[in-house]
């Protein structure tokens, strides 16, 4: 079974776009039967926006850089604080007070010098989001607040850009993949105005796990294989080691994806 929408696009890709170094560097991925050279080329051509370079954004950016995503745009308006260092793995003691996007991009370029990393130290707003999403193939929602998540959700829907949602608290996390027009959007599930606690409790292993699940979704979605977390939300409870899958559906009067009133 394959519910991956990218297969419908039947992209024409040239095998010439991988270098000899690429073939060696990504050989363990390329030998995966459903991925292959074509999958690697698709990753190389992809532009992924990582919204938030904190607990979820750090491991997502790391995983995607190692996997060979061609272009990463990092957006975060915060600087590194000491309390970030239990989980935000791209930021180290020496980076305190550094802009998070600068701290992160330095490490990512050392991990993989062949990828392009764009760093934007700005706050995502409903005014600038349209421009920020120009040319983006996929958004990784790694935010720590609901207001921005809803801004991302709405603009991704308007532009038809897939959106991979992740959220954490304590030893628990949740993840789902949103494909505009095909799956429920974030606002089908949660009403505007809700906001999580601040500061929220969290162990570093939780965002590392949830981010890795988000990255797996990204790799499958961009390269066109596998079964995505669409129409369902995965909850992970690290305290009991239970995984719970909840079926989710479009809301009939959703103000974003079904033409309802906000």
């Amino acid at each position: 079974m394959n519910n991956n929408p990218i297969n419908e696009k039947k992209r024409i890709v040239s095998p010439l776009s991988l270098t000899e170094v690429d073939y060696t560097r990504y050989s363990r991925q390329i030998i995966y039967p459903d991925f292959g050279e074509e999958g690697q080329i698709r990753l190389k051509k992809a532009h992924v926006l990582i919204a938030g370079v904190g607990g979820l954004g750090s491991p997502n950016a790391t995983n995607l850089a190692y996997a060979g995503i061609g272009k990463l745009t990092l957006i975060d308006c915060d600087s590194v604080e000491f309390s970030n260092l239990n989980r935000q793995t791209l930021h180290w003691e020496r980076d305190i007070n550094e802009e998070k996007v600068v701290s992160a991009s330095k490490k990512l370029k050392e991990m993989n010098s062949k990828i392009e990393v764009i760093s934007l130290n700005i706050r995502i707003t409903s005014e600038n989001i349209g421009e920020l999403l120009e040319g983006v193939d996929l958004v990784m929602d790694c935010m720590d607040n609901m207001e921005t998540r809803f801004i991302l959700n709405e603009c991704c829907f308007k532009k038809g850009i897939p959106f991979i949602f992740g959220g954490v608290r304590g030893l628990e996390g949740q993840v789902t993949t949103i494909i505009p027009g095909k799956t429920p959007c974030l606002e089908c599930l949660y009403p505007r105005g809700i906001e999580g606690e601040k500061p929220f409790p969290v162990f570093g292993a939780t965002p590392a796990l949830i981010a890795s699940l988000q990255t797996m979704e990204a790799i499958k979605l961009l390269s066109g294989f596998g079964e995505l977390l669409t129409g369902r939300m995965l909850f992970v409870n690290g305290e009991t080691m239970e995984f719970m899958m909840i079926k989710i559906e479009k809301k009939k009067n959703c103000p974003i994806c079904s033409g309802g009133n906000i």
Partner: protein
Amino acid sequence: MSIKVTLHPFLNDGVELQLEVDGKTVGECIKSIMKQYPAMEKKMFGKNGALKGYVEVLVNGHGVGTNELVYSVKDGDSMAVLVFLSGG
């Protein structure tokens, strides 16, 4: 009037709970659950009697908005009471 309910593990001492309850609204269903599991009340409700901000209710897989307690349910509906994990 039987509603299938899934309760997030956080609300029940870490154990996912699936049960069937009677009720015409989300609030009536939750009230029925509270009778069986009174310890959940502190986790689910604030002092004002409303559901806490991190508790979200899905009926048949979609959110039911901010007036969730008066949302109507019918026989055969499925309801999920979830904790929304919004940290990043």
